[in-house]
């Protein structure tokens, strides 16, 4: 479950990047709003190309500037919970959940529906979901995609404490149970504690 990332990318006149190397299951990117956490996840997912550096997950080199390696997004197996959810508006909740379905993944469909409380929502269109409901569907979709690594960008920001606690438990156990590492973005120190995560401070390299 080794995560070895060292990337830099120029964005709007600033440099955004991080250097990290962890082996603890969950690594939590921590830092103030606008520091570049989402940008880093995008680089890991292959949605933004770093200007330099490398990304290695579990021994697989996803990106290396010097060796000109750049695995395309669809082969990276990143289960990405986007900060802006990005549910597919033309697919019902069920179809959204199953879109990336590959094997059994870290949780089965019924477990995911149960734990995320999506039971009554399966036939709904995303636009009718409340903020927290949409976020839960986004989490479910990523979990069900059978990922090699989970990228979670403030996945619990719109959820109430009871739900949050339940999901923190679920997420904390994923690396242990399935061997899938998690890169977790949050600005809530309490979440990092609850997850037993290694805190990675994202800094301004400038």
């Amino acid at each position, binding site marked *: 479950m080794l995560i070895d990332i060292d990337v830099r990318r120029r964005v709007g006149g600033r440099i955004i990047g991080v250097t990290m190397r962890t082996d603890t299951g969950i690594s939590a990117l921590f830092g103030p709003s606008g520091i570049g956490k989402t940008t880093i996840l995008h680089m890991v997912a*292959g*949605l933004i190309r770093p200007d330099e550096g490398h990304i290695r997950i579990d021994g697989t080199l996803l990106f290396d500037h010097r060796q000109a390696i750049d695995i395309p997004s669809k082969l990276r197996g990143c289960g990405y919970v986007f900060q802006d959810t990005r549910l597919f508006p033309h697919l019902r909740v069920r179809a959204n959940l199953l879109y*990336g379905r590959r094997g059994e993944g870290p949780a089965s469909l019924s477990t995911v529906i149960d734990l995320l409380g999506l039971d009554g929502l399966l036939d709904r269109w995303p636009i009718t979901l409340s903020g927290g409901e949409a976020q839960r569907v986004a989490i479910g979709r990523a979990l069900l995609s059978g990922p090699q690594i989970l990228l979670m960008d403030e996945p619990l920001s719109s959820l109430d404490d009871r739900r949050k606690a339940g999901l923190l438990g679920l997420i904390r156990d994923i690396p242990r149970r399935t061997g899938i590492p998690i890169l977790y973005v949050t600005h809530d120190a309490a979440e990092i504690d609850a997850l037993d995560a290694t805190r990675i401070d994202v800094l301004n390299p400038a």
Partner: protein
Amino acid sequence: MSTFTPEEWTIIGLSLRISLVATTAMLPFAFTLAWILARWRFPGKLLLDALVHLPLVVPPVVTGWLLLLLFGAQGPIGQWLHTWFGVTILFRWTGAALAAAIMAMPLMVRAIRLSIEAIDRRLEQAAHTLGAGRIRTFWTISLPLAMPGLLAGAILGFARCMGEFGATITFVSNIPGETQTLPIAIHAAMQTPGGEGLVTRLALISLALSLSALVAAELLARRMTRGKRSHVDRY
């Protein structure tokens, strides 16, 4: 308007067949062109754009004449079609469908392109992270999201085909039962002194047919957006 003569039935059937075939056959081409114009960057893109607009900019008879030069028995494509497939489209309804499709193309491409450009590409990115490659992403995300433009393009294209006259008569002439569509019959009636009554009658038929197509398309569009409105829409 209550009953039609057999000739009128033939004309109506022919017009519908030609317009339907032309629209349906052109749709994938128009989509491909719209996609290329919306998404790709390459030298000569503007030239392609201009070429797509050509049938709109030059008078229809010129388009018909160019088709004649290309697809006539002496034309490069016409000869090739004849040699390899034994097919001639001159004076045939297939030729009329080709002319209609070419004339409808710019309208269809523009409408579809507008929808493709409006696609939120972050959704395509999301699909990629979920393991969907270009092809699956296209079929499951991009294409459905471009559906409004596809539908609008089909409507515009169909209406344009139903009204196509100049390129058709120049290319495949005015042959009853083969290339004599409603607009050509209307034009012929216009040429006849005192033919205004027949012109009106045929034009009304044309309008009624297109209106039915419109209604069908509207219903389809409503079905497609059904249930997708949020509860936040008060209105």
